């Protein structure tokens, strides 16, 4: 390995990450020098940093797709949009946390810095085009989230959730690392471009090594995106983590891991029979969609239900991934060559563009909806709940519509969006994704997806029924008030409806992610 000499120009394409990192360091230093007891200013700095980083990422999304950082990362609209969505998720999660932590009397300085470090890891993960870089960024994001999961130290739940997440996360990272090592062993390269070029020869020489490597990398990613059967940790961890952190995990971590998985496998399937990746991803999508929805069905604990629902949503995204590897598209992609820096044209490529657009729009929709839903739940939590078990029981939502109609309306909106009911962003996301999958020839799987999302409507609507049609219990909690929480919820609600009614420009922008570096 030649130790690369980077110049300042090399780092310009990853500016969003630089902004997030710099802000995180500023926040940590401010903790040393400032001794103020309120820390809303930290939330504001963190929110501003994520806005700036997101703005730069949106700007980057219109640049042509290319390798940057001497082949260690890529800059293409797909990853830039992901970065922008991660920043949006971080922005909302930071605002939610400000109110949440103040209310819990748990405002400590490292929280926002950790959140920004996690966001930086997520953004870089979606850009990585080399195994060492990929692994480092996965760990940057994971270590920060382990610490965030156990941030509220009272009661046994946070430490258990944190440790469980740590063990399963370290296990997944070890699997991914083992896979990367085997692929490096087979090809002698760690940059995805070089790996992809050397793969056909490696297949001829030692197929077992390559298959084992690919399988382990896939298993590592499957843990991170919580695909069934690698989902066991999700409900416990999502339930035990502070709710704004859960929101960030369900949206940002998942989106980044998804994009990294798509990118890695776009390179790694070269030379392999195209039926294999297609079958594997289809199977994962099928299990995850059906499994997630069925497991969520009996849950009375709303936070746990949302955790299972996030598994189901990962299943719908996996449907999009499976569509990308549909034999029809792989054949067309093979003709385009390694770098598809120009907008793809022609029928098969149009489908490919539609799939990327559907995936991105789905991730965007899920980000705003999930943050809104978890945010509403977080506002109903009480500090004294930490030692009791029924914090998120459906009963807590009973009669919310009479007591706080605004909050109930917002929660109902998020639930409808998760269920995929028009006119919300969740409906449009499903529409784009499923129709793209049908075009790619995955009719059967898309039908299963639609049917399983019908199951989903039952447990989402149950929350709405409790809020609007059940009388409130006497000791029902009122949501706490803090302007940042309210700002975050209003922003999510506006985005959920706004993007659901007028997706216009956004979808047009997302269509350009046909320019994806890969294949």
């Amino acid at each position, binding site marked *: 390995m030649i130790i690369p000499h980077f110049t300042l120009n090399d780092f310009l394409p990853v500016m969003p990450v630089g902004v997030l990192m710099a802000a995180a360091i500023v926040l940590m230093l401010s903790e040393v020098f400032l001794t103020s007891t309120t820390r809303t200013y930290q939330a504001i700095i963190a929110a501003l940093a994520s806005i700036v980083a997101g703005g730069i990422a949106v700007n980057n999304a219109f640049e042509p797709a290319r390798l940057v950082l001497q082949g260690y990362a890529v800059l293409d609209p797909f990853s830039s949009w992901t970065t922008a969505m991660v920043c949006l998720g971080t922005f909302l999660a930071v605002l939610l946390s400000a109110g949440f932590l103040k209310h819990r009397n748990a405002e400590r300085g490292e929280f926002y810095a950790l959140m920004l470090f996690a966001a930086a890891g997520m953004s870089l993960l979606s850009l990585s085009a080399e195994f060492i870089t990929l*692994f480092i960024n996965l760990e940057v994001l994971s270590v920060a989230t382990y610490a965030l999961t156990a941030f509220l130290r009272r009661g046994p739940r946070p430490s258990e959730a944190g*440790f469980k997440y740590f*063990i399963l996360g370290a*296990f997944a990272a070890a699997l991914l*690392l083992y896979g990367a*090592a085997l692929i490096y062993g087979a090809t*002698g390269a*760690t940059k995805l471009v070089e790996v992809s070029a050397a793969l056909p020869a490696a297949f001829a020489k030692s197929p077992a090594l390559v298959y084992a490597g690919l399988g382990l990398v896939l298993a590592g990613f499957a843990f991170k995106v919580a695909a069934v059967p690698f989902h066991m940790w999700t409900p*416990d961890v999502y339930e035990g983590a502070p709710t704004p952190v859960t929101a960030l995990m369900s949206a940002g971590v998942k989106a980044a891991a998804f994009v990294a998985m798509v990118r890695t496998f776009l390179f790694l399937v070269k030379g392999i029979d195209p039926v294999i990746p297609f079958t594997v991803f289809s199977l994962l999508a099928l299990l995850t969609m059906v499994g997630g929805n069925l497991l969520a069905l009996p849950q009375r604990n709303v936070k746990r239900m949302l955790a299972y629902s996030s598994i189901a949503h990962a299943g719908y995204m996996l449907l999009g991934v499976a569509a990308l590897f549909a034999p029809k598209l792989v054949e067309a992609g093979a003709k385009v060559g390694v770098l598809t820096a120009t907008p793809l044209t022609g029928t098969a490529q149009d489908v490919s563009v539609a799939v990327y657009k559907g995936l991105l729009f789905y991730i965007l929709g899920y980000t705003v909806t999930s943050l809104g839903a978890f945010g509403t739940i977080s506002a109903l939590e009480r500090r004294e709940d930490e030692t009791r078990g029924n914090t998120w029981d459906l009963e807590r939502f009973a009669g919310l519509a009479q007591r706080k109609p605004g909050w109930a309306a917002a929660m109902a909106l998020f639930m409808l969006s998760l269920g995929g009911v028009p006119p919300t962003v969740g409906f449009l996301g499903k529409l784009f994704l499923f129709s793209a999958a049908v075009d790619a020839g995955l009719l059967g799987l898309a039908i299963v997806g639609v049917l399983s999302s019908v199951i989903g409507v039952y447990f989402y609507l149950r929350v709405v029924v409790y809020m609007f049609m059940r009388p409130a219990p006497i000791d029902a909690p009122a949501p706490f008030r803090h302007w940042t929480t309210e700002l975050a919820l209003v922003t999510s609600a506006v985005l959920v409806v706004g993007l659901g009614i007028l997706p216009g420009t956004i979808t047009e922008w997302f269509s350009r992610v046909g320019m994806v570096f890969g294949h």
Partner: protein
Amino acid sequence: MGLIGYLLLAAGLFSLGVFGLVTRKNAVGVMVAVELMANAVNLNLVAFSRFHGGNTGQVFALFSIAITVAEVVVGLALVILLFRARGDVTLDLASELKE
């Protein structure tokens, strides 16, 4: 011993790590198992590096060691937290993750 010997040794260590992860009841034991898995991979990386020539694998192994250390630091902090919250560090991952 050729490359295949190192690969088999690493695979054995990795499997031991997975076995330990599933069977150990003690949180510290579980962490040792995770460490064992990471080190098995490092062995693989260094062996491949020797096999291919060049030092990419060694650089990869160095990064992996550094990052695993950082990860374990957070893990140990979580073990301490677990101990403070519950008074002991035994856990039954296999049964707790069932559902």
